[in-house]
């Protein structure tokens, strides 16, 4: 009885330590949130105040402009558009390569697999020159176009198709289904969850991306939220009340989105990690 109690105590202490680590870990986020409600004067007070003395929304008022809504919409268009198109085209390509075997398909699959370790960002210079040539500079299409196919998506589909019983597809073929029909009615329903997981993860990556949209979008109207936030920083004028309020505005929707979709996230991570 005593023995057991001791072990429980030890565990409690360990749990306590873990809890403290956790608190330290999330502290910066708390600090962002609480400081965003301080006045400009309180932010620079020494010693710092642990919570705002009077809840001030000064920073929010200073930073808010209706165009922020536009930034969010642009992020949705960029992240949503590129992920939907990329995963649709990539999975369809992967599906066709497996379902309708041909030499040319095998070549294509290798052409994709060779690329999965190459970061997109390393190609931005020629892509930028290409976008200029295609007259797509400063347009949604220009931002999304290079993302229209996703080598890892093809690779992922090649692997995932192995788990689909061949009979199902053959039966559908015999029934006279077209490739798109089989893809839509047989493959997609079976791979729905893992594709959704992959899509969620990709969505967050695109949503948080800065470099490519920064280069392609030249006018505020097309800025996604990351570029909008980055363009706020003025090296001559550092106003943390304003900046932190902007950070909260940017972060809160993502956290809400994450909490509602977290199952997909965790699955997405384990999927990409276990390849």
């Amino acid at each position, binding site marked *: 009885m005593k023995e057991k109690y001791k072990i429980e105590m030890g565990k409690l202490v360990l749990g306590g330590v873990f809890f403290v680590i956790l608190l330290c870990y999330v502290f910066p986020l708390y600090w962002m949130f609480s400081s965003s409600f301080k006045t400009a004067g309180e932010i620079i007070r020494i010693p710092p105040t642990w919570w705002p003395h009077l809840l001030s929304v000064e920073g929010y008022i200073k930073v808010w402009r209706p165009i922020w809504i536009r930034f969010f919409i642009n992020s949705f268009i960029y992240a949503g558009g590129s992920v939907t198109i990329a995963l649709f085209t990539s999975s369809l390509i992967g599906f066709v390569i497996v379902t309708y075997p041909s030499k040319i398909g095998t070549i294509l699959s290798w052409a994709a697999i060779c690329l999965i370790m190459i970061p997109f960002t390393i190609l931005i210079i020629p892509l930028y020159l290409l976008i200029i040539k295609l007259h797509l500079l400063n347009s949604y299409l220009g931002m999304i176009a290079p993302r229209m196919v996703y080598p890892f998506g093809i690779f992922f589909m090649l692997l995932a198709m192995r788990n689909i019983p061949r009979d199902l597809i053959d039966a559908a073929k015999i029934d006279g289904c077209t490739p798109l029909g089989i893809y839509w009615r047989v493959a997609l329903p079976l791979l729905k969850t893992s594709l959704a997981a992959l899509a969620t993860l990709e969505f967050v990556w695109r949503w948080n991306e800065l470099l490519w949209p*920064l280069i392609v979008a*030249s*006018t505020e109207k097309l800025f996604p939220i990351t570029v909008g936030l980055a363009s706020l920083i003025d090296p*001559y*004028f*550092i106003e943390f009340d304003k900046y932190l309020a902007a950070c909260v505005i940017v972060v809160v929707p993502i956290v809400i989105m994450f909490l509602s979709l977290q199952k997909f996230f965790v699955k997405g991570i384990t999927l990409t990690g276990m390849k």
Partner: protein
Amino acid sequence: MKSKLLAALVVLSLMSLWGGMALGSTTITAWWTVRKPIMDYSREEVKKFELEHPDIKVELVGIPEDAVQQKLLAGAIAQAEGPDIVYIDENVFKVMVNAEVLQPISEEVYTEEQIFEMYGPKASMYKLDGKYYGFPNGDMAAVLFYNPEMLKDYGYSPLDIPDTWDEFIVVAQKMTDLSKDIQGFPIRGREGSMWNALLFQNGGFLFRNGKEAMFADKPAIDAFQFLQDIYDKYKVSSRTSLSANEAFGQGKAPFVYNWTWWIGSMLTSYPDTPFGTRVLPTPTGNPPYGSYGPSMGLFVSSVDPAKKEDVWEFYKFITSPDFQLGWSMLRGLIPARIEARKPEIFGKDPYRALAEAVEGGIPYSFYPDEIGKLILGTMVDKIMEGAPIAETVQETEEEVNKILQRRSEDCFIFGQEWYKAQKG
């Protein structure tokens, strides 16, 4: 029934709107600064223009300053993607002329005589190969900003601010209280720009001419020594406190060095902090006070011949005395347009000091970011972190000369030779 009627009405009104847009109206796209006070001002003013010209619509688009160069170049190739009017930093002016992005002002728009009448001899400063590519907006200069209320707390009036650095530092020291986070004369973040002013004050120059730098000399070394002393000997500025602009804006410093464009930012970002300006102290109390910058600003970059007339019409509007007056006040400029130089405004605080500083100053040169970062960024940072002064200055001068060899045609340099020629 009602709803159907309503729908029909909506459709009709939309169609008429569309029709109106399709019929003969032009849209002028202007790439503008993102700085909020100027943007807000311009939006209001542009509405007036649109009222007078109902067939022209103007779209002001904010472009971050560091991005504008690349976007202009890229837009110029893609033809239609470029703007009709641009507001650019002085240091990319030549790059843009060389890339044929900017349109020269033709005789039909203004004749040479008209230009001279409007701007005086200043206009020719920006004449390249016999062509005017745009008009100067005006001159800004580096001045000393002070906080009159803080001065009062210590028993000083703005008139008591000394003219020489030695005496000035004594005042700044008296007002410093680092335990309360109050710095008498914070310079963190402004070291590079201030070094440049000190260089001129000490009789030095950045460039000899368009092809050669000449700052590796005693004036530069003395200037650095003084900057280091501000931190380490006089202790009126702290490396681990608010940066210069933050501190002054938040009322935690009585003085700060800055260019006059900062007036607009102070007025809008820190409306509660009172401030005045005066010329910088100097080693002897006499000019030169430092550098002043001829601000360039607005250019026509339209490639669409169909729009040409409307674009120039709009250009005339934004270079008009009325528009330039408000613009200059926010940008901290003495307007180049003679009619806009209203003595009742520019003869008074906070602009009076500006006029004095321009009068007793040495013009700033324009050069690509690459050179600016090397001189005012890397070199200054190195020395402020304790690198040996003379060697570092020498090394930097050699590197700058190397870049100048490659890019001298992108620079617009008012060097020592130019200055001597002007002074006769």
